């Protein structure tokens, strides 16, 4: 809107370059230093040396980080658009926690395994949590204010994590798996688990892109959007479905990761304008860069151990959250 077509194109191509740079860094840098020759061997699938084998493991991990980051970034942008709330983020609104609860219950009670079922569970959990939090947050006068939504999301997250502990604690056989998954990591990525997620991610992406025009209209206010001839209710549902599918997929693959969906859309708005047709793809690229870099940073800072990516994003994202709260005038309860 305020930015021209050429500047949008500039922003998007800049984003693509950054994603490629992130992928490069993620392949080259790790807890173990590997010489260039072995990196090349590892990328070609020759895993004769330890270094090359380490690099070969980094490939699916990088793909997962880029994919999940893009999904979370887009989902955050769409949620901020629907709720017209600068603090909306799948982690803060409790949507990730809902997805996590469903997946954990599926593992513990129904002996579910297999990536595709996880995806369905994650999406169902994300959907339930999103509807629940939005319903609680929009009760009463003033509609869904940032404070009410955030509190409802926090309460839902805490309740979900209490139930997750209650489900997991008696089960020694699955506790280790769930613990590692819950912190939020891309470490154990394998292509067999990533491939089934691709169709879901694609559906989520298309739904989000399709709702871009309606989100633009909604930014002007609900009445005005309806006055412009938009079907607001339908548009909201399509957009929410896209955001929920994306965040459910990301959570099912790498556990609840917070703050990516919060930080990325704000940064993209600073650089690429507020038109959702540009903002949504930009948020995807930005999310991929952020999560990829967070993963790389997690490998470096705690050598020889690795820091899970969820911890890194919380470290980066929480100060950003506070900054956003300070920047906006918040309506009280």
């Amino acid at each position, binding site marked *: 809107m305020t930015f021209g077509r050429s500047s949008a194109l500039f922003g998007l191509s800049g984003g693509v370059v950054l994603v490629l740079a992130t992928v490069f860094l993620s392949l080259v840098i790790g807890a173990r230093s590997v010489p260039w020759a072995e990196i090349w061997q590892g990328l070609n699938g020759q895993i004769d040396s330890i270094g090359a084998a380490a690099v070969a493991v980094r490939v699916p991990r990088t793909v997962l980080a880029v994919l999940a980051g893009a999904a979370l970034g887009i989902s955050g942008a769409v949620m901020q658009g629907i709720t017209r709330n600068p603090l909306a983020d799948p982690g803060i609104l409790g949507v990730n926690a809902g997805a996590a609860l469903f997946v954990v219950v599926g593992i513990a009670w129904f002996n579910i395994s297999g990536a595709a079922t996880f995806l369905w569970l994650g999406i169902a959990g994300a959907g339930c949590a999103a509807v629940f939090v939005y319903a609680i947050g929009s009760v009463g006068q003033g509609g869904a204010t940032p404070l009410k939504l955030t509190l409802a999301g926090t309460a839902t997250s805490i309740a979900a*994590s209490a139930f997750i502990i*209650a489900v997991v604690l008696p089960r020694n056989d699955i506790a280790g798996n769930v613990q590692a998954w819950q912190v939020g990591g891309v470490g154990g990525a394998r292509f067999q688990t990533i491939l089934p997620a691709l169709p879901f991610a694609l559906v989520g992406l298309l739904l989000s892109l399709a709702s871009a025009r309606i989100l633009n209209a909604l930014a002007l206010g609900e009445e005005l959007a309806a006055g412009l001839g938009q079907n607001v209710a339908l548009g909201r549902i399509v957009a929410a479905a896209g955001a929920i599918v994306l965040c459910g997929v990301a959570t099912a693959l790498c556990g609840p990761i917070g703050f990516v969906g919060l930080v990325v859309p704000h940064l993209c708005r600073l650089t690429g304008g507020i038109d959702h047709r540009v903002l949504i793809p930009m948020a995807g690229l930005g999310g991929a860069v952020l999560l990829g870099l967070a993963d790389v940073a997690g490998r470096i800072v705690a050598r020889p151990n690795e820091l899970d990516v969820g911890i890194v994003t919380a470290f980066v994202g929480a100060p950003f959250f506070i900054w956003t709260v300070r920047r906006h005038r918040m309506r009280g309860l």
Partner: protein
Amino acid sequence: MSAAEVHMALAGRRQREGRRVVLALGGLVALVFCLVFLTLSCGRGCLAPADLMAALLGHEDAPGFIVNDLRLPRAALSLVTGLCFGLGGVAFQVMLRNPLASPDIIGISASAGAAAVFAIVILSFDGWVVSAVAVVSGLVVVVMIWALSSRRGAAGARLILIGIGVSAMLDSVTAYVLLEAPAWDRAEAMRWLTGSVNGAQMGQVWPVLGALVVFGGLLAAVSRDLDILRLGDDAAQALGVRADGTRLRVTVAAVGLVAFATSAAGPISFVAFLSGPIAARVMGPSRGLLPAAGLIGAVLVLAGDYVGQFMLPYRLPVGVVTGAVGAPFLLYLIVRTNRNGGTI
């Protein structure tokens, strides 16, 4: 009505109110006593009261190990941490005139927990030093949240939101330190993630009891001023209460209580948040809110621990039980406050 009649009516009301306070507090004390008795006498198997007394008095033939070494420290730790969380929580809620501004929502419990874990795992401190580190970090976080949220307009909402952000960050510090811990002990991790009194020892109880005496006393000393502060800063000033001084003392006392309790039993979810509003319902508009909230905190921890130990199919730490109870209450409070904009 003549002046004498008004005076009589007021005096009568005051007397009734006083009786109500005594009754309510007495009932709560009795409830706490019953729960302590239950924790001491009934576990996997139940002891007769005579055996219990004999064991407590140290008779040879009584089941001394079960009562004195297992159940007594557990009951004592639940009691003192519950009192600390309840008092600290309600002090914050009253001071900030918002039930949502409790230490466990605005990040003070999270900071005390993160500091305690850091001191234990990374710096290998123990005992009083851990609690001291937790108190200092709690105070630092309060000052930080204060500084970050003090700007034009609607400070309450901003304070709570910033507190939520701070606590998200500190929780990830806790998660990180626990992953770094050399011996990954899940029971120990549960203590720092949700709060637990499993494996309590008398050595953990004494620092918390000391904190309860010192900081609880400080809180009691300023409780009258705190009550007046509920009327608003201007009214308090007019009645001769120094608002900033009172707030400083209340903050130090409440952070001390919460931090000592957290460094012993972990951030037991939502006890600090729940106690104040429940106490307000029990006591009505009368005085005695602070002691009532402390007692309700003790009831919550004792009952939650008993339920988590014996009344569910699996043994769960107390923080899971209080978290499962507290989260729906938080949602209810959000819905209710939206309707009538009320405070605690």
